[in-house]
């Protein structure tokens, strides 16, 4: 069976053009670090709502089994 691709998501958030096929382990590591650095991941939906209202932005809420930078 195929391996799950965690980094499709990460690369999507960074740059859609970066992903065509499989991604090497070193590239995956870099992408994860970038996504963790570029995005401010809040764990409180309540806080996000307040911030979204203040900044007049939408909310992107990601639910995963595991941790983005600790393994899924």
């Amino acid at each position, binding site marked *: *069976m*195929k*391996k*799950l*691709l*965690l*980094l*499709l*998501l990460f*690369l*999507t*958030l960074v740059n*859609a*053009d*970066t*992903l065509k*096929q*499989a*991604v*090497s*382990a070193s590239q*995956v*590591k870099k992408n*994860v*670090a970038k996504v963790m650095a*570029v*995005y*401010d*991941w*809040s*764990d*409180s*939906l309540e806080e*996000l*709502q307040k*911030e*979204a*209202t203040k*900044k*007049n*932005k*939408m*909310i*992107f*809420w*990601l*639910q*995963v*089994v*595991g*941790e*983005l*930078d*600790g*393994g*899924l």
Partner: protein
Amino acid sequence: MQKHFISGLRNIAGKTNYAGTSNTHLPSYEAVTVTNCSGHHNVQMFFMTKDARVVNCLPGFWNPEAFLSEAKLAVSLNKLYHNTKLPISQRNELFLNTHLEKAFFSDAKLQKQSKLQGFDVKNIEKRKESDFKRVHAFIDTGLKSSDQVLHERMAERPFIPFELFDTAKYIDMGRKKYKYNKGVPGHEKPMRRNRRRNRS
């Protein structure tokens, strides 16, 4: 994404009745392509208005281009939600139409990217009823792709607040759990079939 969204993250392991189980995929592992919606119980991506009403939801992993197309759709639905010139009933109707159009006009490339995985196909086919089953004049003509089904499901859920969104039902696209022979490199567990072979 940064222009339109602020982001939040929740680890659902053991916290929801719909969370799947995951093998170990560390950030230091190689990654490969899978079809859209694979891992539907392990990943859910919600696009919401600022007051946390769901305008789109993608279960599982997604192809980057398809993901961006879905994010753009969410942005347009957000504009619709805030368009107070239209009565709520009309906004709901446009929400429904937008998602149904997206399902109906899904192109061949996207459908190919969004095919269910084999074990999910088997699971769905065993069911007496499923919205994945495409039936014309009482004749079964196969299964819809996951992108089509998710938009049909979203069409039934116009601007639903996140706390009322029935995620378990929405992301049901086959099996909740499955086994495969991967894990920490060098420590893969042998499949039952192989274990028997190794014993004999």
